[in-house]
Each structure stands twice: as C-alpha cells, then as structure tokens.
C-alpha cells in the first residue's frame, strides 16, 4: 500500500472512531443534566439512578474521546506535516480555542463526577451544564477548522506562499456556520437515537421498564427535535456547496454533464468509466431547485472540471444517498414519536414500538459517518480546497501502513471493550434496581 493511501486510511479510521466517541461525550451530558434536574425537582430516585448511570457513560466516552482526540491532534502533524506547517498558523485559532473549551469541559467534568454530596447541589448541577456547553463549543470549533479546508479564507495565496494571514477570518470562514450547524444537529440526532435505542431494547426485554422508559423519553426528545430540524440545515449546506464546491456537489449527485433543469438522482449504481448511473430514480429539475432554488438553474457537471480534480464519485454518491436516506428515516421516526405522545401513549405499550426504536439505534451514527465521508472524500484530491493537494503533503516517513494497522488493532479492541463495558453497566443497572425495588 502506498504511503498516501495508508495515511488517508489511518486518518479516516481514527476520525470515524473519534467522531462517535466525541459525539456521545458531547451530547450525553445534556441527557444527564435533564435527568439530574428531574431528580432535583421530583426527588424520584429513578432519576437519580439514571443520572448516575448516564454519568458513568459520559465518563467512559469522554475519556475515549479525549485520548483519541489527543492522538488526532498529533496525527494531523504526524501524517500531514507539510499541511500543518502551512495551515497550522492559519487555523490555529479554532484549535487553540478548542483546547480552552476542552479544558473547561475537563475541569467541569471533574467537579461533576466527583462533586456528589461534596459541593452545593445547584453549583453541582451547573457544572454538568458547563460540561455539555463546552463540549458542543469544542465540536463547533473543530468543525470550523474543517470548514476552512473546504472554504479556505483569511490569507492571500501568492506564488505558493500563504501571506497576509488573518486567523479570525479563517475561523469564521464561509463554511463554518453551515457545517457546524449540520454537525451539531447530527450529533444530537445520532446520540439521541442511539441512547434511546439502547433503552428501548431493555424495554423490549422487559428489564426495569419504569427507568428505561424515562431514559428513552429524555434521549429521544433531543434526537427527534434535532432530526426534524436537520433538513433545514441540510438545505443550507447543499446551497453552500453548490456555490463553493461545485465538483463536490456534482460527485454527491453523480452529475456528469452540465445541464439546466438538472434532475435529482435517488439511489442508482455509478459507473465512473462510462459515466452512467443505472437503477436510479430521477426527479426532474429537482437538483437545480435544491442547489439554487430555481427549477431551471444550471448545475455544473463533473466533466466541466479536469479529471484529476474529481473525487471518487461512486463513494461520495453512495455515502450521500445513505446519509440523506437515513436522515429522512429518522425525521419520520421523530415525527412519529411526537404523534405517539399526543395519542395518549397507547402505542407505548406495544412491543413493536420499542422494537422499531431498537432497530433505529445505529442509524443516526451510520448517517453521520456517511456525511463525513461525503464531505471528506468529496473534497479530494484537495486537502485545502483548490490550494493544496493531499498527495503533496503526506509524511515522507515510510511504512505508515504499519502505523495504520496498529491503530486498527488498538481502536478495534477499544470499541469492543467500550461496548462490553456499556453492556455491563446496563446489566448492573437492571440488577441494582431490581434489588432496590
């Protein structure tokens, strides 16, 4: 395997792993403080048990997120030294602020986890809120740095040199808002449905139903609201990409020839050689409308761009289909949940209802990973859009493939370990409350 491929695989692999842990660590504190608040208000012990078991989840995910994030902060330089040499100073602002936000999060988490019965109740609750807010702030800042790679700004690129650097302009690059909004909503959707799904499964299995129903409701409320809002953010992102990264949009839609009133393809199998998309559903003029708000707008096709600037069309197109498909599914599931609420909860007693949400548990994260594949693979061959190519900045150190294997083994073990720990948490939670009640 070439160094470039190995480095890209390692980066992709570690990010795919880190994103899951970071998202859970960022969103779960919100569930935790809601449960905590309910306990403070009602003094119902179920909420206390729930808060304490969620806090263990937060602690485990926070640490795995933190150590994989530490690894990533090094990997950026270890794998792409030339990129960091030039980009580091420009995008240093979001990263240094992220460092600060992460620090605040770690301090607040220290107070929260160890503060039970030691610090005043109200202050203790607020430290939990700070954990959540600073977590989301970290996420937004890191995504802003990624946004800069898609929409480089805050410098002049003259004769291969980055001059007149303006770090603040780079932080608030044109892509930061749409990307950060999309990612934050995605994190809430994915974590909401995942956590709700796990509790739904416990209800299917009739274990400690009272507690799991309360847990389910808190988690799914966050997930459902985020899923329902997500299309608005998705539309903003699509319009943004249509304007700034037309190649990426063309790859997402497997749109080869420039045309007016372009159709939107749903599904389909891409043949990059013959530039054909078979087995698809075509909606006339929909692509032009979605990208530019005009049924007859011209949408540039891939053939308008040099071949060596095309990303891998098939991967980007499939990933995009998966993201939109699953996102839509979760949107319907979210609406469905709110309808059941108004139906006097009769469906709440049906096993099918809980089975449905159990099956949906991983869907948010699959959609989220697919979305990252769209934006990252879609940006290739560029590491900084239209400025710097990925192949030119890979490390000269040979044998990165072994480092890739090491990370695959390490993170696979970690994933198994964390899953196993979580299942033990749930098992102990079920046993504990059985004894108590």
């Amino acid at each position, binding site marked *: 395997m070439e160094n470039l491929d190995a480095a890209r695989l390692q980066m992709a692999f570690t990010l795919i792993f880190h994103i899951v842990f970071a998202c859970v660590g960022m969103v779960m504190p919100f569930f935790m403080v809601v449960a905590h608040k309910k306990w403070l208000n009602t003094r119902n012990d179920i909420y206390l048990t729930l808060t304490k078991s969620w806090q*263990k989840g937060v*602690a*485990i995910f926070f*640490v*795995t997120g*933190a*150590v994989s*994030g*530490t*690894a990533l*902060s*090094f990997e*950026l*330089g*270890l794998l792409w*030294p*030339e990129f*960091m*040499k*030039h980009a*580091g*100073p420009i995008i*240093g*602002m979001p*990263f*240094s*602020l992220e*460092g*600060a936000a*992460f*620090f*605040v999060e*770690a*301090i*607040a*988490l*220290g*107070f929260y*986890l*160890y*503060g039970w019965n*030691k610090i005043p109740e109200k202050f203790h609750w607020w430290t939990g809120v700070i954990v959540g807010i600073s977590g989301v702030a970290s996420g937004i800042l890191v995504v802003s740095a990624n946004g800069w790679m898609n929409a480089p700004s805050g410098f002049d690129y003259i004769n291969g040199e980055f001059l007149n*650097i*303006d*770090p603040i302009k780079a932080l608030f690059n044109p892509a930061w808002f749409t990307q950060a909004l999309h990612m934050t909503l995605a994190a809430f959707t994915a974590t909401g449905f995942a956590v709700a799904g796990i509790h739904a499964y416990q209800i299917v299995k009739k274990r400690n139903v009272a507690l799991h129903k309360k847990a389910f409701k808190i988690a799914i409320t966050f997930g459902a609201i985020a899923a329902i809002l997500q299309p608005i953010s998705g539309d903003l992102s699509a319009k943004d990409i249509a304007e700034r990264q037309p190649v990426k949009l063309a790859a997402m839609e497997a749109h080869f020839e420039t045309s007016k009133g372009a159709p939107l393809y749903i599904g389909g199998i891409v043949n990059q050689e013959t530039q054909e998309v078979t087995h698809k559903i075509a909606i006339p003029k929909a692509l032009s409308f979605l990208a530019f708000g005009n049924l007859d707008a011209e949408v540039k096709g891939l053939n308008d761009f040099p071949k060596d600037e095309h990303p891998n069309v098939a991967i980007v197109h499939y990933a995009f289909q998966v993201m939109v498909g699953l996102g839509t599914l979760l949107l319907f599931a979210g609406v469905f949940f709110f309808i059941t609420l108004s139906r006097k909860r009769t469906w709440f007693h049906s096993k099918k209802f809980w089975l449905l949400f159990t099956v949906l548990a991983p869907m948010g994260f699959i959609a989220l990973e697919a979305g990252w594949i769209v934006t990252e693979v879609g940006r290739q061959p560029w590491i900084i859009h239209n400025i710097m190519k990925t192949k030119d900045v890979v*490390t*000269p*150190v*040979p*044998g990165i493939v072994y480092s890739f294997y*090491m990370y695959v083994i*390490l993170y696979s073990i*970690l994933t198994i*370990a964390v899953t196993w*720990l979580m299942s*033990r*948490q749930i*098992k*102990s*939670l079920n046993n504990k409350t059985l004894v108590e009640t």
Partner: protein
Amino acid sequence: MMYVVLFFLAFSLLLYVLLAGADFGAGIVELFSSKKNQAITKKTIYRVMGPVWEANHIWIIIMIVILWVAFPAYYNIIVIYLHIPLTLMLLGITLRGVAFVFRHYDAYKDKSQILYDWMFKISSLLTPVFLGITFGALISGKIIHTTTPIDYSFKILYIDSWLHTFSILTGFFFAALCAFLSAVLLIGEASYGDKKIYVKKATIATIVVVLFGFITILYGYISKIQFVIDFVSNLYAMTTILISAILLIPLWSSIRKGRRVLSRLFAGSQVLLILIAALTPHYPSILFTTDGGISILDNVAPDSVIKVLGISLLIGGFVILPGLFHLLKSFKMIKILERH
C-alpha cells in the same frame, strides 16, 4: 506577544511535567509496590487523581497547538523525525487513559481488573519513558534534517535519531522523576498508617532520580553530546543545578518528616529548576540536529497569528486557571492554603 506565547509554552510544559508527571508516576509507584500496598495505592490514586487527571493531560494538547500555530517549522521537524516515539507515546497515553477509567467505572469488579491494572501500570511506565526519549532525541543532535530523505535509509533517518543510549537514559530519568513527584504527592494523601509507605517510596525515588540524572549527564558528556557539553560549561545551568542540589537537603528532610506542603513545594521547585537548567543554556535552540541547534524563533508564524494566539491564550488562561485552581483545591490536591 511573542513572549506571552513563549510563556504559555513554557508554563504548559512545566504544568504538564508536574501534573501529568505525578499522574504517570502514580502508575509507576503502583508497579513497584507489594501486593498489599498496590491496593492501597490504587485507592489513594483514584481519590486524588480521579477528579483532575483528565485536566492534567490537556497541557500536552495546549503545547502541541502552540507549537504548530506559532512555531510551524519547528513542529514540522519534530513530527517527521520523531514520528515513531511520538506514536508509541500516543499508544501509551491511550492505553493508560482507558485503563484508568475502565478499572474504576467497570460495573463489576472481577478478574478483568487484573488486566486493567497491568495495562495501567505498564503504560504508566512506558509513556513517560517515550516522552523522555523524545526530549532526549530532540537535544542529542542525532536528527539528520534533510530535504532529500531518499538518500538515507529508514533506520538512519527515523530510528537512529531517537533510539540511542542517551535518549533512553533521558527516558528513564523522566520516568523516575514522575515516580518521585507522585510519591511525594501521595505522602500527603495517604492515611496516617500508610504514610510511611510513601515516605519510603519518595526517598527511594529521590535517590533514583538523582542517580539517573547524574548518569545521563555523565554519559552525554563522555559521548560528546554537544548539548550536554554546553550545559556543563554554562554558568547559569550549573548555578541552577547547584541550587537544586542544595535544595535536596530540605526536600529530603521534609520527606522524612512526612511534611506534605513543604515536600510538594520542594519537589515542584526541583522540576522547575531542572527545566530551567535544561532549557536556558541554548535558548532559543531547543532542537539539535547533526548540523547544530535550530532556533525555535526561526521561521515563526507571522505577527498577526502570534497576536491572536497570544490574546486567545490570555483569555483562555483567565478562564481556565481559576477553574483549575478551584478544582485542585476542592479535591485537595493542593494544600498551600491550609494550615497544619
């Protein structure tokens, strides 16, 4: 503003060595304890480190971010030529972090604890060793900084640069320093009966640190490592070392008497003095290649970047430091304000 940035870089380094060092050291102390003491140590570590250990380790991220933002050319050399020890260090940080949390948050305390314990202890030893190796490699003058890496073999460029006696000695010196810091910290945290365990450990650790420090410098001098030769002949460095040697006496007596505040104060000042001694003789060159020292102030980021970074660090510092202080104080890791 450059000085603000440099100050935060040095400050993060100091706090990382002190706080994360004590944290790594806890695992090392546990590794070198009898079975009975291991259980006591494990409990004490959890009580003391639990609330703060994650915050302790963020200093390295702050350092890395400052390096790449403000000193990109410098950072570039480190990540290319020291790729392997840094990756091994990351492996250690990862395994250690998860083992620490797993062993305390696993819902069932069964045989899996044995695995977590070993993971924790071994990685607690190896991570600082690799950190020390990285630092030793930086100053040993064995890095070949070249624009045509194709002319050299993999071993010469990416292994010989860091895998040699001097850097390994530096690695063990740093690990010993961590164990020393931790043992001193634990003196003040153990219950009355257990105190003497850590008094003994701290005494041994002090001897080991001084011994490793001496051997490292001696070896560096004999094998003509430029950094060490200049270090030994530098007036400031030697004065600092002399002060630290003199301060060993009150440190020693405060350890023997089990004085928690004083012993911590003296232990911390040892670290401060060692860092000052190591960094001053060649400042601003902290990196030595086969072609001599490379100044950290060469090819720095443009002023606009330094300015924004400096302001961010100041704001961040004002938010974080009081919070961190409050956290350390609330969970009694620092006891300066208490009277005994």
